[in-house]
């Protein structure tokens, strides 16, 4: 009996051990260590770590206009980016579930930006905003292209939103297409026979039936928009005048450039709570709207 028990323990260790040890070392330990550091004045270099209580959190909330600014930017950005990328993805998915001749090629085209990392995409679009758009503007005289792209707060904000939507829409499109193809044909036909207009079909049949896909896409869009870092770094570096600095970039700068690790971990801790709360609320709300056929 005892030998069987120890063999069982050995199996547990061999099968779950390696993955769990890496996971614990890389995720769990830093997570709790970060919580601890957020209550200290650690500068990242010295061995001396002094407990400072809630000082970091007071500093962030009352004495750090840049952080609040970057937080407000991230919120506005996420709202715009989540709505635009999902509306675009859903529209494209609706079109590409029709029997078009170039359907598969077009699906590939829309997905393509997704395979190239955010950092490279940011550099690509930097060129387009700085050189490409003015050139088109000269040729066509369309005011849109002659705006000072990336040059002032408003256009830089929308510039990042455009690139984010362009990058992520293809991914959400795939999820929406899968969901749309699973909408039962007989329900659609029955509704059409009953005289439902196209928009009634959309709001009263299609959207409720694909709610699980909406839940997933909104979750991914919200968490990606909140965590945006690569795109931000390569496209604007937070400029002009820190107007497009995301929370992720602000945390990075605080810790690794200003060497204020205690303050940085406190910001990271608050960031985690906000992301967790917002995504949980979103999943709760959209899940409650899911229906069974």
């Amino acid at each position, binding site marked *: 009996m005892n030998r069987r028990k120890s063999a069982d323990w050995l199996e547990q260790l061999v099968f779950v051990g*390696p993955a769990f040890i*890496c996971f614990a*070392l890389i995720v769990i330990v830093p997570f709790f260590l970060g919580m601890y550091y957020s209550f200290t004045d650690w500068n990242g270099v010295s061995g001396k770590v002094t407990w400072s209580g809630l000082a970091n959190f007071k500093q962030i909330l009352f004495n750090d206009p840049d952080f609040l600014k970057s937080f407000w930017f991230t919120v506005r950005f996420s709202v715009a980016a989540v709505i635009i990328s999902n509306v675009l993805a859903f529209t494209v998915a609706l079109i590409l579930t029709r029997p078009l001749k170039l359907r598969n090629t077009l699906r590939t085209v829309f997905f*393509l*930006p997704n395979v190239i990392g955010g950092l*490279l995409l940011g550099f690509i679009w930097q060129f*387009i905003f700085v050189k490409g758009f003015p050139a088109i503007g000269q040729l066509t005289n369309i005011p849109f292209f002659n705006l000072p792209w990336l040059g002032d707060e408003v256009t830089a904000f929308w510039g990042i939103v455009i690139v984010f939507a362009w990058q992520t829409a293809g*991914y959400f499109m795939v*999820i929406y297409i899968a969901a749309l193809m699973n909408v039962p044909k007989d329900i659609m036909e029955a509704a059409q026979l009953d005289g439902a207009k196209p928009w009634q079909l959309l709001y009263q049949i299609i959207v409720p039936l694909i709610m699980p896909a909406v839940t997933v896409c909104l979750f991914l869009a919200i968490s990606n928009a909140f965590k945006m870092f*690569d795109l931000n770094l390569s496209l604007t570096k937070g400029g002009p005048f820190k107007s497009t600095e995301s929370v992720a970039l602000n945390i990075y700068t605080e810790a690794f450039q200003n060497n204020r690790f205690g303050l940085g971990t406190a910001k990271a801790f608050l960031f985690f709570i906000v992301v967790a709360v917002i995504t949980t609320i979103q999943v709760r709300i959209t899940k409650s709207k899911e229906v069974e056929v």
Partner: protein
Amino acid sequence: METPRYTIRTFSLEIIAILLGLLFLVSFYFVIVNSFKTFADLLTDPTSLPTSLMWDNFVRAWKILKFPTVLTNSLIITVIANLAIAFLSAMAAYRMVRHPNKLNNFLFLIFVAAMVIPFQSIMIPLVRVAKTAGLFDSIFGLVVCYIGFGAPLSIFMFHGFIKSIPMEIEESAVVDGTSTYGTFFRIVLPLLKPIGVTVILLNSLWIWNDFLLPFLILQDPTLKTIPLATNTFFGQYTKQWDLALAALVLGIIPIVIFFLAMQRHIIEGITAGSVKG
């Protein structure tokens, strides 16, 4: 059931979709076309096709980026991390599904719950932990980090898949006297191929393109990956767009080829990965 006819409406939708598709590709047109121009041509007329092909931009970018080295680094890291994540996650998920005791249910809960932690929330202490544990500035260390971050989602996906495999196949093997290890390697592992492909492809896109983690963990310039090299490149050659665009084209070619070769599986993977309870 009759097949839907190709109507005028469908045709106009096709036109709209094609126009939207072209709009999506315009950015690539700009980058590719201009990467072949001389700097002067690029400045005077960024919209036209190049008059002559400047391969020299690519030759110089290739050298400055040390492209063979960074490509090899990216490949090594992506391949090893992928194999390690898929293998270790499959093992862990298998045990958790087949021995659903209190401990394993708790561990599974922790793995899944950790998926909501944003990377930026743990990156600061992670650097410290990596230094203490001897994982800093080494490919092995970076791979361990990828296992840690990749395990939750991969375990989650394997877990769901293994639950759907009937126990009978394994039971008959056990009756025939196969050990648990033998059962896993000879019977279960081959069955996991479909979900394994999905897990590996999704992790490949992520690891290949990842910037921040290698940026924090790798210091040695000879260990640079493609995103790291591109970032340093842009720091040094900010306004030399002819060189910079050639470097960008070099950087995106490998992953675009990989995607075009694997696209059916990648699309299926996303579809499978998003359908969760």
